[in-house]
């Protein structure tokens, strides 16, 4: 797999199953706190599997679909080049190491959760993770700050899920079509 194509300008260096697995395996191994920039680097710049435009196009599709962007991307890229076995190779490669790592951390947490020092450590870690999520929410919501319709829909969503703790399915089935209809009225 180490035979990285010398000609990085080549548009399609179609990876085989092994390369799909190892490419995404390394991505899963190294992608701390956000895999997306690394994914682009790996597939477009380093390995030349996709052109920049193809990457953006696939990402657009994957953002549109349910599921994590990178998870969907691994499936799409695997399918594109090697069909269903390729999709399995890519997604398994991507989640192999992270799964092993989280279980390892989970075992440690489970064993030492009662120790006050460990409890404080995880208390700080959990608070920091909450802080990261707050920051993510701010970054996603920021472009909507002057969009009255967007803020209205976003606020309804927050009320339904965080305040009233309504189930996600009916909330989505109500708010997503409402938002799309209002948006298309606004556009026309």
């Amino acid at each position, binding site marked *: 797999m180490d035979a990285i194509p010398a000609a990085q300008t080549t548009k399609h260096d179609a990876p085989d199953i092994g390369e799909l697995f190892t490419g995404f395996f390394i991505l899963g191994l190294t992608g701390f706190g956000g895999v997306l920039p690394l994914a682009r680097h790996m597939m477009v710049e380093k390995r030349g599997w996709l052109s920049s435009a193809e990457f953006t196009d696939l990402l657009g599709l994957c953002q549109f679909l349910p599921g994590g962007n990178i998870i969907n991307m691994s499936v799409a890229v695997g399918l594109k080049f090697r069909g269903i076995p390729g999709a399995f190779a890519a997604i398994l490669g991507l989640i192999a190491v992270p799964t092993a790592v989280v279980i390892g951390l989970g075992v440690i947490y489970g064993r030492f959760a009662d120790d006050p020092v460990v409890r404080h450590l995880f208390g700080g870690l959990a*608070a920091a993770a909450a802080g990261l999520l707050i920051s993510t929410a701010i970054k996603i919501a920021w472009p909507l700050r002057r969009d009255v319709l967007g803020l209205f829909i976003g606020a309804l969503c927050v009320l339904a899920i965080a305040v009233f703790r309504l189930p996600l399915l009916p909330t989505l089935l109500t708010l997503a079509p409402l938002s799309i209809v209002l948006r298309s009225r606004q556009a026309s």
Partner: protein
Amino acid sequence: MSGTLVTLALIFSQLSLLAFGGGNTILPEMQRQVVDIHHWMTAQEFGALFALAQAAPGPNMMVVPLVGWHVAGFSGVLVTSLAKFGPSSLVTGFALRLWERFKDRPWRRTVQAGLVPVTAGLVTASAIVITHASVSSWGTVVIAAGVAIATTTTRIHPLLALAAGAVLGLTGIGQP
């Protein structure tokens, strides 16, 4: 035990298909299911598992196998992973075929624009739910606020922010 596994499979396959806008949007529903409905763990434990998953490498939905592990060990990991990643992957597979055909249709952009505020609202709801579960003392308030401000206003690496939070937490300052 097999009843638990079936329940896990049902919960996570439903979540898989509802995760528009990425994994963070389904955290409140995941917490509602595993904490409020099935009582497999407390809200604080769920917050801790989420934090562990954030500290691990890879895609940001690794809390899924971790919940599976906590509830039902290795078979739980297998079931939750398959249920969470399987259905959305199937959808991706089918969508890939249709994608070229609908690429330039204007309605596609309208749908996408309509989903943006929903995603923003869901991620905000996630932040509220997780913060509520994980932040209870003034020490953890300081850590969460510090990390939120630092990662919003600077380009600090998220892992560094998590490490700083863990170290501050280790001192036990402001925690019961």
